């Protein structure tokens, strides 16, 4: 994230996290982070956990052990939220002409999944009411066999949809 390097064949800046997984001849079509709305579920849990802990803490009859456990649970939810923020900063969805790469970063490590674009058979976009307002959607990729990949909270859904459809179903005239 902190170091940006220029790829050989394009002038677009690519995050170092992504650049290290691209082949020399591979050209990125797009690289996006997830929409910040991806942080809503861990944020809701963290705020709710703190609220619940603060609300029940004065109930001292249970003893200090219970209060400790309650605050540990709330702290765990807060830590989970912090980890989600870290993962959001360092997680990307990268689309090249050859493949779709998902870079997922957690506190425990980084996971890189990739699917060849040719194998994507179907692409479904799901937009909730809040997603329409805030500008994000869930993309469902279906591949050969019982393989499905759902990516939630992708920003710019209309542009992304057209770009991805163009890669999955390329114009025959381009091959000629």
């Amino acid at each position, binding site marked *: 994230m902190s170091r940006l390097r220029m790829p050989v064949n394009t002038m677009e800046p690519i995050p170092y996290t992504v650049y290290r997984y691209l082949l020399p001849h591979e050209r990125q079509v797009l690289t996006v982070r997830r929409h910040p709305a991806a942080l*809503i579920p861990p944020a*809701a*849990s963290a705020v*709710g*956990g703190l609220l619940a802990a603060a*609300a029940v803490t004065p*109930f001292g009859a249970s003893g200090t052990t219970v209060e400790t456990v309650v605050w540990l649970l709330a702290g765990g939810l807060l830590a989970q939220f912090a980890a989600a923020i870290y993962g959001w900063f360092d997680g990307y969805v990268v689309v090249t002409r050859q493949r779709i790469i998902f870079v997922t970063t957690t506190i425990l490590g980084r996971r890189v999944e990739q699917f060849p674009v040719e194998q994507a058979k179907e692409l479904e976009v799901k937009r909730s009411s809040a997603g329409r307002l805030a500008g994000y959607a869930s993309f469902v990729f279906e591949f050969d066999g019982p393989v499905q990949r759902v990516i939630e909270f992708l920003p710019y859904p209309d542009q992304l949809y057209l770009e991805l459809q163009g890669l999955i179903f390329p114009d025959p005239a381009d091959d000629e």
Partner: protein
Amino acid sequence: MAALNATQILRRLRRSTPVALILSPIGLLIVSAARLLIIADYNPTTALGLLSSQSYVNALLGTIVPLVPLLMPYAALLFLVTRRVVPGLLALLGTALISPTNRSDAAHVLSAQWHPVLDGGFFWQALLFVMALAFTILLLVELAGVSPASFARSAGVVASIALLPLVVVLYSVPIGNTAYVDLIRQPWMPAEEITLTSNQEFTGYVLSSDGYWLEVLTADDRTIKYYRVSDIRDRQICRPPQKEQGRPLIALTSAQAPVPACPSPQPPPAPEPVPGWMLYRIADMPKACLGVGPICGLARQEEGK
């Protein structure tokens, strides 16, 4: 869609591996074997005797079923914390229906939990109000913008934290609690007060009977003993002497059937002092001498010489 369902099922199975392991035959066998040993006072021979006299299904279910009400409240919290909402809600419902609570004033306890919030100072209340407002907005956005499942998971994990003190008050933690220890030590058969024809009374658990012999696990020293059926004068089902078991929060029946309490185990009587002139106490005499009197003992003593 078939592929989608298969993927989802696989993913869910992978997520619930710990639950599946506990509920697997291996997990159940380990839990039931542990409880069988506790019932047998950690004596493997007695445990094997218990097992051989009962069918395996009886032993398995009998050892597991009494643990369910005890662990159900904490299992519910665990499910909710780990974001398994449906099992968590089912466990909560089960808790309300079957888990005995040690407090009859649950509503009072629930209201007392929130008194400090309502009676707190302005700053405290304002802080809680702001947090509650933020939480509500986030939950609503999650419900509308993410998915109802995600909303339920967030609400569940927060509810588990809010419910934890209440659950601890209503259902004692099953660690180091004598009531739970008594309950776990109690076999799954009903306790019986057995009276022999010799007027000896004791409390035991009848393991089996073939019409001639009665196999009994004694309640006090947990040994397996065999009695002739003809030596049994009376059998009466009784309630082991332990703390009065509470009622669940939602009791479907109004009252429990009255069962008399089992007599507390009496310490063995101290041996009576033997007068100098008595050569044998009756209890020490050979059975052949019973009914004949001290003369027989005297005769035996003479034979020994």
